[in-house]
């Protein structure tokens, strides 16, 4: 074990592990890839999930459908889907990772947005209609703003999960911080493995804390009326 500690020290202090060497990517490059994969997945998930949930909520029927699909989606192994896409039509690279991550991150965003909109008091919406607002205006100016605290919760959960799960993306060759673990494990260089584990765990926990603070700000700004 003492040699492992030594290896970790060597890895952390060596210039090549941060800047890359011999064609291998360094931490900075991998971090950039990690942010790119997780960020792109989050943007796509929001772009699909929020309008979809809004539509379903307006339609007022999707309740059971939304929860059952979301529950089923939660039990789909992300790694499996990523590997399947990689050997299938999509091929190895960023694409299988992002597609699998989007499928994985949709449930928290869809369920929270859906609940946020349907939880808006009917008296509030009736009052808005009574003031002469159209259906679309009610949605845009009453229901969505009131749903913001819950939507923010969904986005926070998705972001934290995406950051953690983007680690797996390294297995299908799309880089990111997970590559420190896959490459280190393949070459049995545990200095790199543990270096990667520490970096990923610290950034994941840090992001979680930062997102929670951000959520508190959003909740205070938009007045949280519903429970988390």
């Amino acid at each position, binding site marked *: 074990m003492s040699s*492992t500690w030594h290896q970790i020290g060597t890895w952390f202090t060596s210039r090549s592990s941060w800047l890359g060497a011999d064609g291998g990517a360094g931490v900075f490059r991998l971090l950039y890839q990690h942010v790119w994969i997780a960020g792109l997945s989050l943007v796509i998930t929001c772009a699909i999930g929020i309008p979809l949930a809004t539509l379903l909520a307006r339609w007022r029927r999707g309740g059971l459908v939304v929860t059952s699909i979301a529950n089923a989606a*939660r*039990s789909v192994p992300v*790694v499996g889907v990523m590997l399947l896409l990689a050997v299938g039509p999509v091929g190895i690279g960023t694409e299988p990772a992002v597609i699998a991550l989007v499928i994985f991150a949709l449930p928290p965003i869809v369920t929270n947005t859906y609940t946020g909109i349907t939880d808006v008091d009917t008296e509030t919406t009736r009052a808005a209609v009574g003031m002469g607002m159209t259906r679309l205006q009610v949605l845009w100016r009453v229901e969505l703003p009131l749903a913001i605290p819950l939507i923010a919760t969904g986005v926070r959960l998705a972001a934290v999960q995406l950051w953690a799960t983007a680690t797996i993306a390294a*297995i299908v060759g799309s880089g990111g911080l997970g590559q420190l673990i896959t490459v280190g494990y393949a070459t049995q260089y545990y200095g790199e493995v543990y270096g990667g584990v520490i970096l990923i765990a610290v950034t994941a926990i840090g992001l979680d804390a930062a997102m929670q603070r951000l959520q508190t700000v959003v909740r205070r700004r938009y007045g949280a009326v519903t429970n988390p």
Partner: protein
Amino acid sequence: MRLPGDFTFHKQSDPWLSWHYFTSNAHAIVSATQTHVTLTLESVALGLLFAIPMAALARQRRWLRSLILNLCTAVYAIPSLAFVVAMVKIFELNSLTIVIPLASYSLVILVRNILTGLDEVSGEAVDAARGMGLSDKRTFFLVRLPMALPTIMAGVRLAVVSTIELVVIGGYVGQGGYGSKIFEAFSARSHTELTTYILLTVLLALVADVVLLVAQRLLTPWRRGLAS
């Protein structure tokens, strides 16, 4: 980057789904299922073993409560691939490599649910037990814990279902039940095998969900008829 499965060879037929594959590999499927179920149960059992004293401790002081809950959330934020590979060096081929990370992840659900369950126990019941001369310890095991059982069981159910999906990552280090099969299938580029084991994972999660729901009803007969 060169991946483990990065070679090409000819296969006679490799459909996305095949009933023939399912029947001709029944033996392998049964044994993978056994491993998968065992790993899941071991993880949740170990999680429960730690979660009960942790929840009991969290009820003692306000700062302990937030400390323990924050600790569980932080651990949950650590990516599974990082956690599992970090354990490989210590436990190698022992199943603890996968069981310890999964047990740690289950804490966030279990501790929270046990706490909620214990909080909901009515003060009157506890007072009655005290009045009958029960010691604190006996009150905890004979009154508080059984009365908290419905909420605890709901937590166990959630933990089992989410653990079934998480076990798959163990396949990366050869410890996964279905996960091992999924990673083997990736190396062999077998579509049939990949889809079969992904679907089996989802199916197992659904079956576990139903079985535990029934168990929850049977274990708490006094709650029958009430919405669970």
